[in-house]
């Protein structure tokens, strides 16, 4: 049985070219980039090359890129860093109810430490309500942080419009682009953002490496102190292989992006159509069109998500769910609740996220298997009468 991997929003396999590019930096090129001797020059240059590649890809200059350990650190750095740097100016932050936990829990942490946070609601398609944004802005608002696209339901946020409002009020604006970079166009000038988080393994780079774009002139306090690395914005000996791998992944992504966007969106829509047609009482979560090309999120009435995943797993199919039963907190997905789903429908949600290796045959096979699984579980459910 061939495995069918449909959880690319969680992580992607690292590209072989990426791995190859990384390998010499574990062995031959081991010099500490901060050292003065010549073997360190190679590693130092490799980091700067990767920085250049990433900067170019998002329309930034090299000095505006800080490498981090991944998306969560980038989010933490952006939010805590700006909050601390501007603490004398104000203590109010605006975010949305559907952010990744790396943003939400960072905001909750700041709330406990003397900051006020407004959590903007979203509409039923998972798009931030823009009129609420204007209303939430105060004189002491120092930061707006709203994701580029949601990781669970794929809704793409009106980042450019948000940026316009932020600029008008001279408020720093951060966006978490972990789900979008490498998948849809991300350009810091077009999006007009001040800070932007990226994660390597979401676009076939290695795990444990990411980046934060920081627009020149943005005030920010470092998160990690100790050394002069990354222009004193992040101490710690650089993860050279990881950074090289990230650079390599960035080189690959744009070349295939526009084709992949079209291809995956088509696969996505075909699959959604099939499922909604063949499985009664199923619904698509998130926006129909303003949506990541690789994201599918469907709720099945009357059954629970972990049970669906376990059944899919028996056929070698990997997906994820927003069910309370499979979260460590035993709470259903905050994103699904924010778009107005009741607990039961949030329970019965499954996310399939596609990647560049996903084929029509794979999705057809899932579409063939899924109705039987849903039927079997519904027959077992006291909440569903067929």
């Amino acid at each position, binding site marked *: 049985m061939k495995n069918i991997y449909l959880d690319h929003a969680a992580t992607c396999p690292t590209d072989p070219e990426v791995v190859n590019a990384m390998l010499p930096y574990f062995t031959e090129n081991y010099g500490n980039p901060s050292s003065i001797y010549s073997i360190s020059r190679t590693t130092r240059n490799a980091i700067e090359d990767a920085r250049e590649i990433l900067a170019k890809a998002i329309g930034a200059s090299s000095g505006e890129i800080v490498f981090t350990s991944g998306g969560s650190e980038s989010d933490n750095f952006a939010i805590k860093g700006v909050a601390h740097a501007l603490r004398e100016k104000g203590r109010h932050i605006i975010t949305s109810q559907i952010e990744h936990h790396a943003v939400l829990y960072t905001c909750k942490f700041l709330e406990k430490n003397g900051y006020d946070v407004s959590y903007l609601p979203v509409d039923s398609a998972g798009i931030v309500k823009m009129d609420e944004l204007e209303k939430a802005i105060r004189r002491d608002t120092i930061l707006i942080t709203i994701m580029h696209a949601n990781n669970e339901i794929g809704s793409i946020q009106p980042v450019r419009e948000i940026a316009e409002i932020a600029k008008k009020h001279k408020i720093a604006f951060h966006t978490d682009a972990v789900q979008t970079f490498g998948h849809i166009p991300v350009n810091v000038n077009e999006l007009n953002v001040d800070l932007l988080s990226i994660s390597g393994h979401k676009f076939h780079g290695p795990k444990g490496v990411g980046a934060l774009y920081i627009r020149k002139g943005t005030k920010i306090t470092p998160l990690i102190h100790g050394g002069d690395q990354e222009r004193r914005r992040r101490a710690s000996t650089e993860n050279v292989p990881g950074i090289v791998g990230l650079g390599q992944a960035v080189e690959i992504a744009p070349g295939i992006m526009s084709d992949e966007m079209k291809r995956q969106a088509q696969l996505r829509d075909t699959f959604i159509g099939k499922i909604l047609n063949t499985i009664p009482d199923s619904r698509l979560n998130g926006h129909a069109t303003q949506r990541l090309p690789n994201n599918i999120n469907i709720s099945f009435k009357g059954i629970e998500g972990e049970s669906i995943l376990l059944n899919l797993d028996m056929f070698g199919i990997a997906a994820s769910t927003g069910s309370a*039963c499979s979260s460590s907190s035993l709470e259903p997905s905050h994103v699904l609740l924010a778009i107005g789903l009741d607990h039961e429908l949030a329970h019965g949600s499954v996310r399939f996220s596609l990647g560049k290796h996903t084929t029509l045959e794979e999705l057809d096979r899932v579409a063939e298997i899924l109705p039987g699984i849903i039927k079997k579980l519904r*027959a077992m459910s006291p909440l569903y009468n067929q």
Partner: protein
Amino acid sequence: MEQYSEKVMDHFTNPRNVGTIENPDGIGRVGNPICGDVMELQIKVKDNVIVDAKFRTFGCGAAIATSSMATELVIGKSIDEATKITNKVVAEALDGLPPIKMHCSNLAEEALEAAIKDYREKQKS
């Protein structure tokens, strides 16, 4: 996701005694306040012995497996014996559950309790 024992997976994939009973003698329907899951257990009783039990469950793998195991444990037992089947007994019969999933086995115990209570009340009237 935490690893389930082979027995849990067996009862999850081939759940025993799924469904409803015609004219059941006792019905227990309970919800799990922790994660919001629901289980319904129906029993048939003859001469104070549970001769049949059927369940329907809306819940995770552990909830379905414990429901299934509970019906197996309960069939053939007298009402008094059945009251001694706790969630621990069910979980042990499944070779244990991941710690975070222990609460799921409460469903089985509570549904059984409720079904027996319902049976006893019906007897009185």
